[in-house]
């Protein structure tokens, strides 16, 4: 027989210490105290900052290239040398316009006025480019029929033969390099954005794995005590989301400040090439998407990593 007596476990005896004294419960997974809680927000901030810059840079390069490109695709320019006086110049332009409108493949023509021309040349010739007295070549914008690529055959030769003072200009030769440079920059920006995304996912997987490994014993114990997978996954997910949000906001603000400063620089000078690089409302909107995106990536990656690991437990 087992010995009995006074040594019976307690039954209904009131607790020694006042109830409620220990009610504030610590989390069973102290993820918020992990080293990652100090690391992750900063790394995410850095990544969001980078993604922000790359995004706006890429969109700017895209706009620039598109502007040049759309200005050039299906377009030609014909220069007409100014004659000895305005009358002669006008006659020459009239001849060229007649020839062009009669040509196959030409949809429309437009003579650039003095102001448009001046704006084009201002950075090089200064304000005087607008002066009436400066004899400039006349420029005629030619829009080709949709589907027509390059110079319609024979056009250049006919122009040269009939009006020697006119010269056909296929911009591609000059702006092509600029456009491919802008497109390259755009590609690099895209690559940086993609890499930032990959780095975020990679980091989240690593941080989560590390958390799983640091807290492996606790997690296994919780599992054996009947905790559900989603209970554990939820803690990791929430933690990752919180840290990513914090980092994302910091990164957003940093990127916003830098871009705002850049815009001020661009606007303070009136250079013609640059405005398309400064952020537009669309850019600002794209920026605002980054922190929620970071949070979503963080939460989903953490959840997925944890659940994948937990299903290995019996």
């Amino acid at each position: 027989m087992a010995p009995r007596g006074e040594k019976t476990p307690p039954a209904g005896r009131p607790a020694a210490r006042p109830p409620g004294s220990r009610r504030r419960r610590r989390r069973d997974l102290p993820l918020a105290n992990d080293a990652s809680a100090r690391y992750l927000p900063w790394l995410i901030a850095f990544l969001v900052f980078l993604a922000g810059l790359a995004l706006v840079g890429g969109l700017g390069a895209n706009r620039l290239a598109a502007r040049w490109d759309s200005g050039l695709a299906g377009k030609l320019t014909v220069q007409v040398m100014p004659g000895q006086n305005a009358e002669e110049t006008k006659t020459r332009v009239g001849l060229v316009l007649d020839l062009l409108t009669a040509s196959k493949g030409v949809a429309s023509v437009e003579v650039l006025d003095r102001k448009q021309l001046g704006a084009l040349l201002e950075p090089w010739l200064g304000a005087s480019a607008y002066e009436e007295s400066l004899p400039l070549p006349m420029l005629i914008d030619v829009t080709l029929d949709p589907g027509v690529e390059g110079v319609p055959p024979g056009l250049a030769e006919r122009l040269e033969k009939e009006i020697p003072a006119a010269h056909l200009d296929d911009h591609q030769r000059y702006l092509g390099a600029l456009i491919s440079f802008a497109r390259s920059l755009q590609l690099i920006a895209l690559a940086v954005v993609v890499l930032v995304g990959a780095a975020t996912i990679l980091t989240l997987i690593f941080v989560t794995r590390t958390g799983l490994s640091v807290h492996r014993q606790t997690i296994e114990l919780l599992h054996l005590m009947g905790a559900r997978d989603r209970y554990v996954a939820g803690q990791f997910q929430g933690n990752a989301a919180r840290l990513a949000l914090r980092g994302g906001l910091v990164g957003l603000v940093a990127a916003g400040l830098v871009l705002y400063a850049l815009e001020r620089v661009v606007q303070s000078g009136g250079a013609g090439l640059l405005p398309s690089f400064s952020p537009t409302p669309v850019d600002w909107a794209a920026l605002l998407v980054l922190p929620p995106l970071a949070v979503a990536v963080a939460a989903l990656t953490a959840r997925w990593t944890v659940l994948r690991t937990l299903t290995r437990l019996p």
Partner: protein
Amino acid sequence: MVRLDDVALRYGQGPEVLSGVTSHLEPGSFHFLVGQSGAGKSSFLRLLNLGQRPTRGRLMLFGRDVARLGREDRALMRRRMGVVFQDFRLIGHLTAFENVALPLHLVGERPGAIDSKVSELLSWVGLADCLDALPATLSGGQQQRVAIARAVVGRPSLLLADEPTGNVDDRIAMRLMFLFEEMHRNGTTVVVATHNETLVGRFQHPRLRLEGGTLRLVPAEAAADGTA
């Protein structure tokens, strides 16, 4: 409560640790699990707490075939068990109090009830002064008692204790055994794996002896005649 039907267990490609164990533990029964070091006592308990799946055979717990349970059901079933692990497995960043409160939190007990139950139980095992101590600051025997308190605090239907008295002296060991006895009297099915022959001899409970991968039941009378 627990029914094993020709159950075998091997780890990976290793030899069979348990081979063809057939047994039935009645609800409310109390068994000692004995056997040499390495005989498979912990492995047997691991089967019962769903920490390992049998390699073959059928294991019924609470009247249900565990092989047919989903993840959710297994989690719920685990909550009806209390387990004392041979290596304690306390959560290092939680105090003794919080460790013991954990099973109650998992089933959603009221904070007030948690507070009184946990404090009371820890006082009973002699740790009234250590409620706010982290496991690392407790002695080996104190940790073991916290582990035991955590296993019994939820008044589980099935209590599995693996070497629960290896780090305490005989006086405390007896005190802990009274706790298990009390649970048993209140209807809990108890299995205690132990090397402590003195302890086994003092109680009138049948033994399950693991030897060569099979389980042999030694009734209480024969056991009492034998080593005790």
